[in-house]
């Protein structure tokens, strides 16, 4: 349940960053970001200082959820 919740929050944060990627870089890079969310994640961190995009909070939430997901994954693998 906690894992799913983390994924859901990560998904929302990811979609917000993806929408900003579409708006800033155009449709092709947007589709690339949709296919490869790692690219969206990298792009988000690279544009963190761009105040007009207001990415900071979303990127921190997204990254936190990913770290949480990795920890939960490791715990789940060890306990199984």
């Amino acid at each position: 349940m906690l894992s799913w919740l983390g994924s859901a929050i990560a998904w929302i944060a990811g979609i917000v960053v993806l929408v900003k990627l579409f708006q800033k870089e155009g449709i092709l890079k947007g589709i690339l970001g949709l296919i490869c969310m790692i690219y969206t994640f990298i792009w988000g961190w690279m544009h963190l200082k761009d105040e007009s995009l207001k990415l900071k909070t979303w990127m921190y939430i997204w990254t936190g959820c990913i770290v949480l997901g990795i920890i939960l994954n490791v715990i789940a693998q060890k306990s199984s």
Partner: protein
Amino acid sequence: MESKFRQTWFKPVFSSILSDPAERIALAVFGLLQVGLHMAGLPGWACPFKAVFGIPCPGCGLTAAMDELLHGQLLASLRTHAFAPIFLLAFLVILAAALLPASLRNKMVAGIDRFERRTGMTAWVLTALILYWGIRLFGLV
């Protein structure tokens, strides 16, 4: 209208990623990590779409397919994700761009830029990938 469409379709996307030092290095590192973790049997980046909705995104399966391709299992790789060879090639180009000296890299990026502007290759590949995703979603492949 047509000119705007042409501008979008023939916009060099891949070469613009390659020409940005931070983007190409970050993608090379993340890509190596992702494929490396998968090859080691460890969990890597989980697709947020699949984790939440259980529906694969257009890129789902690419890491596994690239892993199979790197092990020489071409047919298995194509069955897992038909675009694996294209993405592996793109990944190798990103790695090369991250490692090559500036003079060689600039020549390579300029060549890719011209190729993209002439053919609109990135737009074709991305469109085909979205169509392939739809076909896979409806179980036609």
